[in-house]
């Protein structure tokens, strides 16, 4: 039974089919939502995403992409509803095709951190990115999606995803440069 079949059965009240579908995608959608709008809201995003599937609010069309892209597309809709207007506006940054300078080779705070500290610092740096860049990092780097899949989910050209990711990495490296301490970064990200 493929994922599309599971959706069809779940919509007819098949608990086993739904459980398999949920188990296959729940964690990935939760992580995406947690990075985009916080862990507190991630549970709600997962719930709203699968409720929309069960209630047939958004039909699945195999011709438009995989079930994974379909679910992420729904989740993204609920994520965007939770972003502030200022954050949501960052998705329009691509209009300004400014060149992002790649930071000079400098010592990074990562050089001197334990694994736990590194995770905390990088996580905070990701959270401090503009939403559009954060999404590119989450989808392409953390979820290891192809540019094509990320572009399908974000409803933008592949080139846009590529440039967002490039800028996001440059921003992350700047944030992680040794000129600032990890604690400063964490504090600034949570403001």
């Amino acid at each position, binding site marked *: 039974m493929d994922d599309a079949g599971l959706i069809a059965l779940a919509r007819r009240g098949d608990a086993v089919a739904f459980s398999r579908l949920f188990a296959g995608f729940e964690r990935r959608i939760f992580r995406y939502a947690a990075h985009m709008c916080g862990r507190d809201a991630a549970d709600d995003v997962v*719930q709203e995403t699968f409720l929309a599937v069960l209630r047939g609010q958004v039909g699945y069309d195999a011709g438009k992409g995989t079930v994974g892209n379909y679910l992420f597309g729904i989740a993204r809709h609920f994520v965007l509803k939770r972003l502030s207007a200022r954050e949501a506006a960052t998705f329009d940054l691509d209009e300004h095709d400014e060149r992002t300078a790649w930071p000079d080779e400098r010592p990074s705070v*990562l050089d001197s951190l334990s694994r736990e500290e590194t995770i905390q610092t990088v996580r905070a740096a990701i959270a401090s990115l503009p939403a559009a860049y954060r999404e590119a990092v989450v989808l392409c780097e953390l979820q290891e999606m192809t540019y094509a899949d990320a572009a399908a989910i974000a409803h933008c050209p592949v080139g846009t995803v590529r440039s967002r990711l490039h800028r996001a990495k440059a921003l992350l490296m700047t944030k992680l440069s040794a000129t600032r301490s990890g604690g400063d970064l964490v504090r600034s990200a949570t403001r």
Partner: protein
Amino acid sequence: MRFDVENESGSDERLTVGLRAVAEDDERLGASNAVGLRLLAEVQAIADARRRRAMVLSLAAAAALATALAVPAWRTLQSRPGLPVAADGAVVTRELVTEFFPLRYSNVPARGGYVVRMQVPRTALAAFGATAPAGISNDPNILADVVVGDDGLARAVRFVQVIEEEQTP
């Protein structure tokens, strides 16, 4: 534990390692059990609603079938005077009927029909291709229920004898 990036060259590699560490750490994250339970309850509600719909459809089909059978029967009853009726407890009228006998056109399909009660001379029974069975009175006239199709062709006939009995207290 030191995060080992000694063998990586350049900040890009260090960032990649840091992102990998976050991705690995993310592996433990997932929606709470409450979300799964809430969604399973929704699935159960969908299943229950579908079962209810199926039951309603079955009942509707059964009702339609019952109506299709009952209406012709009701019409038949309406066209049959003299059903057994208790007359103030004094006299009870009942009918003695035979089974239906097929007539010449009994095999001709009909969409509908009706039953006509008529009095026929006993000698006319032969015209229907039937004879009165034993138990029917020997009166020169006899009551008959004739099943007539919507095309006017008689399909079957049965013979009726009305019996009046005094009701004992």
